[in-house]
């Protein structure tokens, strides 16, 4: 019984779809960011601060960070599922990855709204 191969976790579609949607969000944000940077040739500290003082830029950046976090979580978990076979070790590593990603998102919020 302990050696039985088990499948059927029923969450494949959700994460696969989430990875594609978050990738699209990141791509759109990246294009907007490039346009903003190109249209402001002299990006001084004050220009930069004014840009991120605007509510829409903060929300968009937070959306980008959340998308990156979710996207990275699915990707890193996929790598762990392929290469780390003992379930206990994999769970421990997945928890570490989740905590790290959560810390980065928290740090992003702190930077954006400080």
């Amino acid at each position: 019984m302990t050696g039985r191969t088990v499948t059927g976790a029923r969450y494949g579609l959700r994460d696969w779809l989430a990875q594609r949607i978050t990738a699209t969000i990141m791509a759109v944000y990246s294009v907007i960011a490039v346009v903003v940077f190109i249209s402001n040739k002299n990006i001084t500290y004050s220009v930069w601060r004014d840009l991120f003082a605007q509510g829409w830029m903060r929300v968009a950046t937070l959306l980008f960070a959340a998308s990156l976090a979710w996207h990275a979580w699915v990707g890193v978990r996929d790598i762990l599922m392929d290469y780390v076979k003992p379930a206990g070790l994999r769970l421990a590593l997945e928890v570490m990855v989740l905590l790290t990603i959560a810390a980065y998102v928290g740090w992003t919020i702190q930077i954006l709204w400080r």
Partner: protein
Amino acid sequence: MRLSIYRYDPDKDDKPYLKDYDVRLEHSDRMLLDALIRVKEMDDSFAFRRSCREGVCGSDAMNINGRNGLACVTKIADLPDHVTLRPMPGLPVIRDLIVDMTQFFRQYESIKPYVVNHDAPPERERLQSPEEREELNGLYECILCACCSTSCPSFWWNPDKFVGPAGLLQAYRFIADSRDQETSARLDNLEDPYRLFRCHTIMNCVDVCPKGLNPTRAIGKIKELMVRRAV
């Protein structure tokens, strides 16, 4: 023509090795399989599978200069003078170029490769319209040679959990069949991070399929149906 062939007999050899054979080809030798039969005449301890010798049975799938293919449909003229032959990667070697395909067929079996229809059987066959039959083109031709699944890294890492491109192509073959009534159960069976979603669309399967089939497209269609079902 020089063939370097992977040799391993677990009863005699501590580890596998490559053995070189200089094969004198006859004028009638056109395919790699013909050269292998010449090797067998030179060294009858060499073991490999072959049967139909025309790309229908899928027995002589092997790794030819790093790329999976069928020896019987690989033209000698298209190969360099020096060819290295190894067993298909990712499956246990029984001897020389013969691999144990149990894992591969277990995954094939897991997708229920037959039409499930709960209606009373008609007097004659269950009919399909030409359009419904058309849906099966590019799917039913699979000969289960395992060239695709054994060139897929996801299948190498998780052969016990990932169905693999051949099994998923067959899964879609029955999902797409208008006579089958188990679509939802078939999708349930594949809605899993391992069984279907280990596919990361690198398309090695499409690259090597000797029948020119496209498992990646079939996998995409399964995912599309799952999305349509979920949203």
